[in-house]
Structures are given as C-alpha cells and as structure tokens.
C-alpha cells in the first residue's frame, strides 16, 4: 500500500509540476462545460428572422401575415418587402425564412380556386431548416383552422357547431423525455461525456511516456515492484481526478446550465465509474505502448470528433452502416453515451440498461488486464530501445568512473 501511495504521490507531483497538464486536468473540463453549456443555453430557436412579401395586400393575406407575426417562433424583418429583397436577405442570412403571398391570393380563394402561398426556408443549416419547417407547419395548421372556421361561419354555421366540426378528429401530440424539444438536453450531455473522455485520456496517456522521455521508466522496470502496483499507483490519481471531473461537471451543468438529469443517481455514478475505469486503464495502456508524449497527444486529440459523430448519439445508429456501427461499439463512448441518455432522460433502471453495463464492465476488465500486463512491458519501442541504450551507456560510464 505504501508503495502504491508513493507512486501515486509522485504522479500527483508531476501533474502539478506540468502547468499545462494541471490546466487541462482541472480547468479545461469546467471551461469547456461552461462554453458548450452557454452555446446551447437557449436550447430552442426563437425569434427566427422572417421576411413577408405580401403582393396581395388583402384582408386574407394580412391574416397570414398576422399568424406569422404574433408568435414566439418568428421575428418579422420589416425592411424585406419584395421578392428580390427576400432573395438577397436569404443569401446574406438577414432572414432565414420567408412567406410570399401572391397578388391574386384572396381573389382566387373567393373564386373557389386553390390559392398558393410560398413558404421559403434556409436549409443550408439543417437546424434552421428543420425547426423552421416544424414551426411553420404549426402556424399554417392554425391558419387552416381559422380560415375553415371563417368559411363555415359564412355558410351559416354557429360558433359551437363550427368548433365541433373542426374538432371532429384531432391529433394530439405528446413529446416524451424532452417535451420542449430542447437541444441542450439532447446534445450537451454527450459533449460533457466527450470532455471527460478526452481530458481523462489526455492526462493518463502521458504517465508512462513522460517517464520514458526522462529516462526514469528504467527505475520502474528494474524495481521489484509488481506490475499491478505500478499500474494502480500511476493510474489512481487520474482515476480520481476523472471521477471528480465527472461529478463536478454533472453538478455544475444541472445547477447552472439547465441540463436535465433524471433517473437513478446510483446508476449515473456506476456508469461514471465504469467509464472512468476504462478511460484510465486504456490511457495507461496506450501510454505504455506509445513512442512519445507528442505522438500520443496528437493522435488522441484528433479522436474526439470522429468518435462523437459516429457514436450514434446525434445521427441515429440505425442510419449508420452496420459494420461501422459494430466497430464503433468496440469503444466505450457510444455505450456510455447511450446508457447515460437512457438513465438521465428516460429514467431507465439497471435491468433495462443491463446490456450496456455488461458491455462497459467487460471492456473495463479487458483494459485492466491489458494495462497490468503492459505495465512492465519488456519489449521496448524503437525510441525506447535507444533510450535504454543511452541509459546503459550512462550506467557503464559511471561504473568506469567509479572503477
């Protein structure tokens, strides 16, 4: 125990001696959480700039304009009044949607002919595109109802009858798990887990490479310390820091950034512990095999975007080719992201997420076994071989001097 404690203390010393590492381990996670949390703080698109081109100027066209004006979804930009202006404004992003009401809009309706208005929206960004389409359909449905009610009134139907006719069949929509369709609830948790993943890996993956570069790894290899003690001693500080960061970010995000977290706290912590264990052990194993701190830093930093996007957390896994899906499932992140979402958004219990817990547990066991087995690896890499040679030369030189 004392040996493990000594190695762990030495590792903590290294963390604090390396200012950038200290910054990354203790400050960057909360900085990223704050940044991403702020980015998605509103979570819902409102006041979308809209241009209305009313070429009819009739009472019916004003009804349409009113429906699109008096709501929280759109904000009408008054300076856009003609089609060329709308085109130009759409191109420069001054408006993201537009309504074009043709000149004979009301006349055609009065002649019992189909009258078409045009709804334009910017789909160069699909978050704009899909949300505008949804909002516009909500409002046009409202317009259809108002228009039908006015028409029935014109036919001589009384108010109550009109309501009965219009409400003969209605489709009530119930949105589960994220009732306000908030992007913060959807994305932010996944980003938090990616922060934990990357910062955790980045920290621990330097633990052996650093020693190799300082020619200190020889001390560990030549010592009587068993491999598992080296692994635990070196990995423990990172395991604790990663779990601390996990807990801190979750608390911070729920307390200050409106992240919705429900479900069993025990399960959330269990998922966190398993994820943390995999990250720490995987990082240690990578570090033992890596040639240098620079190589490991570069490659790990590049992993975040591909892992996040292929994990099925945003783009549904059902739409990702099965082979790629299978390969991605060899990594811990997709399981953790899935499990976390099921527990925190859908409040599922241990029985329902058992396959995820089992997958994470198996990964943890495999990585621990690999990390312990490579903690005193005897087959050095090319760079390390040269360092060993340098080390032996130095020892030889000292022996000569002593002699």
């Amino acid at each position: 125990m004392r040996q493990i404690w000594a190695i762990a203390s030495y590792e903590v010393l290294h963390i604090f001696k390396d200012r950038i590492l200290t910054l990354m381990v203790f400050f960057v996670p909360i900085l990223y959480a704050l940044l991403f949390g702020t980015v998605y703080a509103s979570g819902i698109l409102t006041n979308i700039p809209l241009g209305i081109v009313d070429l009819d100027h009739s009472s019916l066209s004003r009804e349409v304009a009113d429906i699109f004006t008096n709501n929280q979804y759109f904000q009408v930009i008054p300076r856009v009044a003609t089609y060329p202006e709308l085109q130009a404004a759409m191109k420069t992003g001054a408006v993201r949607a537009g309504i074009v009401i043709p000149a004979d809009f009301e006349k055609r309706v009065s002649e019992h002919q189909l009258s078409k208005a045009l709804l334009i929206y910017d789909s160069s960004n699909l978050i704009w595109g899909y949300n505008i389409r949804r909002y516009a359909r909500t409002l046009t449905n409202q317009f259809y109802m108002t228009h039908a009610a006015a028409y029935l009134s014109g036919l001589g139907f009384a108010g109550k009858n009109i309501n009965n006719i219009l409400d003969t069949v209605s489709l009530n929509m119930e949105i589960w798990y994220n009732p306000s369709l908030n992007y913060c609830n959807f994305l932010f948790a996944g980003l938090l887990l990616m922060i934990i993943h990357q910062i955790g890996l980045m920290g621990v993956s330097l633990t052996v490479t650093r020693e190799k570069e300082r020619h200190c790894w020889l001390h560990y290899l030549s010592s009587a310390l068993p491999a598992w003690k080296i692994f635990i001693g070196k990995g423990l500080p990172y395991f604790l820091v990663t779990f601390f960061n996990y807990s801190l970010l979750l608390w911070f995000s729920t307390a200050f950034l409106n992240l919705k977290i429900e479900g069993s706290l025990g399960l959330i912590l269990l998922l966190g512990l398993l994820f943390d264990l995999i990250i720490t052990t995987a990082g240690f194993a990578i570090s033992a095999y890596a040639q240098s701190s620079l190589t490991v830093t570069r490659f790990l930093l590049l992993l975040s975007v591909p892992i996040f996007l292929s994990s099925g957390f945003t783009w549904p896994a059902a739409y990702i080719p099965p082979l790629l899906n299978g390969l991605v499932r060899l990594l811990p992140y997709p399981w953790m992201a899935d499990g976390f979402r099921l527990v925190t958004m859908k409040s599922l219990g241990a029985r329902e997420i058992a396959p995820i817990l089992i997958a994470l547990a198996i990964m943890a066991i495999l990585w621990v076994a690999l990390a312990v087995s490579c903690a005193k690896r005897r087959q050095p890499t090319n760079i390390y071989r040269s360092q060993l040679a340098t080390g032996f030369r130095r020892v030889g030189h000292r022996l000569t001097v002593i002699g």
Partner: protein
Amino acid sequence: MEVGVMKIMPRQYLAIMRHEVLMLWHDTGLRHIMLWASLLGLCLFLLVYRSQAITAIPTAVLDLDHSSTSRQLVDQIANTENLNLVASVNSFDDLKFLIKAGRVIAGVVIPENYGRDLSLGRQTRILAIIDASNMIYATNASSTFLTVSRTISAQAGISTLVANGVQFNDAQDAYQTVDFQEEPWFNPALNYAYFLVLALALNIWQQCCTLAACMTVAGETGRDSWLQIRATGISRWSFFSGKALVQLVAFFLMALPIFLLSFLVLKSPLQCGFPVILLFTMTFALALQSLGAMMSSLARNPVDASRLGMIIALPSFVLSGYTWPIEAMPHWLQSLVWVLPQTWFFQGFNYLAFKNPGWGFISRYFLALLIIAGICYGVAAIAISLGNHGARRVES
C-alpha cells in the same frame, strides 16, 4: 555590402523552407496525420451520413378500435412519408416499452370507438407520441405528424360537413382552398450529408493544420537547429514567412483532395466556384498557421504547443455556429466566438458553398481572417523576442 545581403537573404529563406520541409517529413506521426487524418475523416463521415436524411422513422400503432375506419387510418399512417410502421401493439404498456427501449421513435394511439364516433360526427382524439431524446428524429417526426394532423382533420371535417348537408365542393373549399407550398432553399433535399460531411472533414483538417502549425517555433526549440537559426541572425519575417509558406503549401495539398472528392465525386453543393473556395480556405489556413505559430512561441515544448493549440481547435467547431446558430447563443458569447478564425471560416464556408452572397458580403470574412493572422504573427514575433527559447536550450 547591400548587394551581398540581397544575395544571402534568398538563400537563407530557401534554407529555412527546406529545413521546414524536412522537419515536417521526418516527423513520422505528424506526417501520417497530415497525409491521412482528413481523408480518413471524410470517408468516416461519408459512411456515417450515407443515408443523407431521416426517411423512415420507426413507428408503432396501438389500434384500440379495430374497426375498418381505424384500419384505414393505420394504412394512411403506414403510407405517410417519413414514417415507417414497424409494430402494431395491443396495449399502451407495450407501446411505452417499445419507446423506452428505443425500438420505435413514434407511437400512434387510435382510441376505442374511433370509427363509431367518426361516423356519428362526434369528437375523437388520436394520440401521437414522439420520443424526443434524439432531436434529429423528433423534429422530423413532429413535422410529419403536423401534416398528418392536418390531413386527418380536413378529411374528417369534410365528411362531417357533407353529412350535415353541405355540398362536397363547399366542404372541400373550407379546408383546401389555401395551400402553403414549402420550398427549402440552398439544400432542397434537406440533405445532412451535404450540410455536414465536408464541414466535418474540414474540421479535422483544421485540427491537423493546427497541430502542424504548433511546431513552427516549439518544434525548433528542442533541437540544435534553433541555436543555428538564432546564430544566423535571420529576421523574424524571413523565419516566419519561410516556415509559413511551406506549411501553407502543405495545408493546401491536404485540403485539395478533400475538395476534389467532395465537389467532383460526391457532388457537394458549391455555389461560389472552385477558385474562390480554395482562396478562402487558404486565407483561413494562413490564420490557422499564425494561430499555431503564436501558440508555439508561447509554449515550452512541442507537447505543450500541441495541447494549447488544440484547446482552441477542439471546441471551435461547436463555437463556430456551423451547427447550432450563433444567433441562438447568448449575446456575450456571440461577440466572443468571432475572435476565433474558425468561426469566420465555417460561417463563410457555409455562405460560399450554399449561397454565394457576392464579394461585397464575403470580403469581410477574408479581411477578418487576414487581420487575425496579422495579430497572431505579431504576438508570436513579440513572444520570440521577449522569450529566451535559445537560452533555455543552452541551459538544458
């Protein structure tokens, strides 16, 4: 004397450039990253977004009525665009279970006596449930159900009016004289692959460029060559421009296959023309190089430089507003994100690829990237003057 200096300068300049080429090439890890990472990223994202749009939302139906009318409704739902009827369940608990387990994303509950109420002109309510834990599914599903809602409501209303003695044409006029035709501009098929794949590949490309640029100064300070460079008395301008030129050519060569693949093979939208997008990308590459050089001059060694550079490069895509719009971010952050060159690039790239708003609009994006480059090179030059990289090396 002056002629001699003029002769020496280009040689020094060429030497710096040759040295940079060798340094980039001999750094095996960096070489592999620069050669393969962006292309691999492009291939990966292409695979991920291969289906391009969500067209079949798994849906379950709970028909509590079992009448011919309710079966008609089920058929109608099955034939609705974007909905894929995958299950028919017998109880609400079964439906709830399927949604919880993620096997279906949407559920439709047809109430008991639906057919009878409809034929008697009584009010009846259909329930549509959407699992909104994934917003990509949820926005599509809710839009689809809004259309379904309108169609069903209109059909039932027309039947009721006809039953009340209104002429069919009059009844139809009540619901169907006005139509809103939807026209998505710039990406008419609402194609996720067009929207995201190239931008994500360019995101990986900019991360690779940052990693390479972070070696500008820090890559030298750990070597004997740094002392040689200092001893030659080469100007900071020659040092930075020589290195930057080589790196810019490398960045260009990295970006070229990504663009060729995207625009020529995969037919990603490009409204502005190939030369303009290349020029814009290279202006961004210059800003990235300057940012990397600045980080490099502030760091003690290549590892620190890489980490500092990536602290900015990693979150920059999210902050750039390419996906979640800048307009929806808090005001103070809206101002802050424009400090990053990535924001100017990804915003400008979206405009150029999808809209081509004209030089008058896009010139400010070029200008901003050049200003950022100027500031970063300035800071890097000051940091080198004030810092004692050479002294550190001598000490070590």
